[in-house]
């Protein structure tokens, strides 16, 4: 193997764009929502399911899923859980502060191929963050898609994200929305139980239903089992994987699963591609 180096057109890969925070909302004790504007209000140009590398000089960089739909123009949204040094500092930022943005990176949901299909969304915990990008895309292109069914599960009512969206989804005649919490509170009137308890009761048009699943690693195994019992064909399942994408451009090696770099081939995978990938689920 020998490559003519001088013929390769190389790219600068690691310079961020300095973007401005235009709105901030606190969802829970751990999660905050940010609206972010690129220089000149330029569109991010992402697909639902893609991620960006968010950085603060001095604190470093981390991969964060875009939570707004590409149909939203002028700015994009992130929902960030405070888990480390960088995210702790991000949580301290307010409107007018700036962050570094690289991306969007990876493969998102192939929304074009979903056209005409029913869309079943299964989101656990902060898995709802990248899925909201897909949900809003479908809502904004409602006539292109069939039923929109959203299953959302959280550990407890205090951890539910997007209060405004949840109200909207509940109210909409166009959305079949089911929510559950692992552990309820005295005030909680809804379903209690893990997210898989919502699956058996669904009435689905099987060959015509696309399922998008995002959640913590432990959730996939059980959701996939439930979907199998429900006879949803593997070809109709898409899921998104969390890994340590340090560079986002397929070089640093941290997100690798077998031959696949999650930052390039994922984070959204068509389940048949993933099924035989060891270490993936």
């Amino acid at each position, binding site marked *: 193997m020998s*490559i003519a180096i001088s013929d390769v057109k*190389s790219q600068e*890969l690691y310079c961020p764009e300095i973007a401005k925070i235009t709105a901030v909302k606190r969802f829970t004790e751990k999660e905050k929502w940010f609206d972010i504007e690129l220089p000149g209000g330029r569109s991010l140009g992402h697909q639902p399911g893609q991620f960006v590398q968010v950085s603060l000089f*001095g604190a470093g960089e981390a991969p964060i899923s875009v939570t707004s739909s590409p149909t939203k123009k002028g700015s994009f949204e992130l929902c960030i859980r405070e888990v480390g040094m960088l995210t702790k500092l991000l949580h301290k930022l307010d409107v007018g502060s700036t962050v570094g943005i690289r991306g969007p990176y990876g493969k998102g949901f192939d929304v074009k191929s979903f056209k005409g299909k029913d869309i079943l969304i299964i989101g656990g915990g902060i898995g709802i963050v990248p899925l909201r990008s897909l949900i809003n895309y479908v809502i904004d292109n409602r006539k292109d898609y069939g039923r929109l069914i959203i299953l959302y599960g959280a550990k407890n009512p205090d951890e539910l994200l997007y209060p405004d969206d949840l109200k909207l989804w509940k109210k909409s005649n166009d959305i079949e929305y089911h929510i559950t919490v692992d552990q309820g509170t005295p005030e909680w009137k809804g379903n209690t139980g893990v997210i898989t308890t919502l699956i058996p009761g669904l009435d689905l048009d099987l060959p015509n239903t696309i399922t998008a699943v995002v959640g913590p690693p432990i959730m996939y195994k059980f959701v996939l089992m439930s979907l199998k019992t429900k006879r949803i064909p593997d070809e109709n399942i898409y899921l998104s994987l969390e890994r340590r994408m340090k560079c986002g451009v397929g070089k640093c090696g*941290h997100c690798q699963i077998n031959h696949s770099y999650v930052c390039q081939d994922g984070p959204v995978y068509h389940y048949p591609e993933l099924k035989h990938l060891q270490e993936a689920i």
Partner: protein
Amino acid sequence: MKKYQLNNKQLPSFIDHLKKQGTVFAPHKKGDTSYSFEKVENPNSVVLDYNRTLNSVKKYFLPPREHLLSFSKTDNSFRKGSFKNEKKIFLGVHSYDMKAVLKLDYNFSQGNPEENYLQRRKDSSFIGVSFIPDEFHFSQSVGIPLHDTEGFDIYLEQNSDGYTVKIITEKGEKLIDGFDRVSKAKDISSNHVQFQNKLKYNYNRLPEVFEQSWNAAVWEEVSKKCVGCGTCNLVCPTCYCFDVEDNLDLSLQTGTRDRSWDGCMLNGFAAVAGGENFRETLAERQRHRVHRKFKYISDITGEPWCVGCGRCTAYCTAGISIVEIVNQLCDEYEQNYLNRPAVVGLNAERL
């Protein structure tokens, strides 16, 4: 191919001739038993007869640590790291290390071609030198013959009085042009040495072994010895994984975004912020490392990503040998998949 004779005593003046054309890097002795590629200041300190250098020439294209950006928090400004544009001549490179550079060229060119690597890599010339394999070399088993000249501009093959100089490329011809003490090539009477340490199967049979390697017993066994120090990653000429972190200077206002070599054998390599570690055990990490050298990239490119330099084995703090790992995989493959009674065949006959 043009050939010249370069006698040992002509070597310093040959190096001086090279130095006039660019910055020359060559092996130097370090400590009692180690060698290292260094910038040549004094031609007499260059050692061409060596077994292996601690690190390969990879360090010049992918430095152990580099500034991706310098930034200022005060005004949120930054500028990217700079690359020195200089003509580099690497003298005394072994064939396996040359092959490793060609493999890294692939990794940094495919997908998103990376400026940092490619800018450093361009304007490089390579002068190879023959070597006598020791107990750790096994390049032949991974498809790299002893005198493989692919990638070299000039190849020096040791003979009784010095070196036979083989001009491989036009670039090589230009490098030697004007050096007036070359003479007609002597017949090569170099030792017909062989690689001692060999893989049980030749590289072209390894894909079938690695089809069945996931659940092999060797991973658990080797993890009992392994301490997870990552030395094998650091010395490997085809390992290129890296980490990126920001470092502030004392003002706490300015600093650098730095990338440094990382290793998949280290505990936190595949861990995410939420606490999940996707390769938590040493067995999983060993399996990943060895599969990176023999399967993941190899399935795509058709060649092993191990070059048989023997560094990971020679420098392993726990005495783990990659040759033994692969040979045990071959053994397990034979026992479990080749020597099984042909049940299917017998049944088929009965039917």
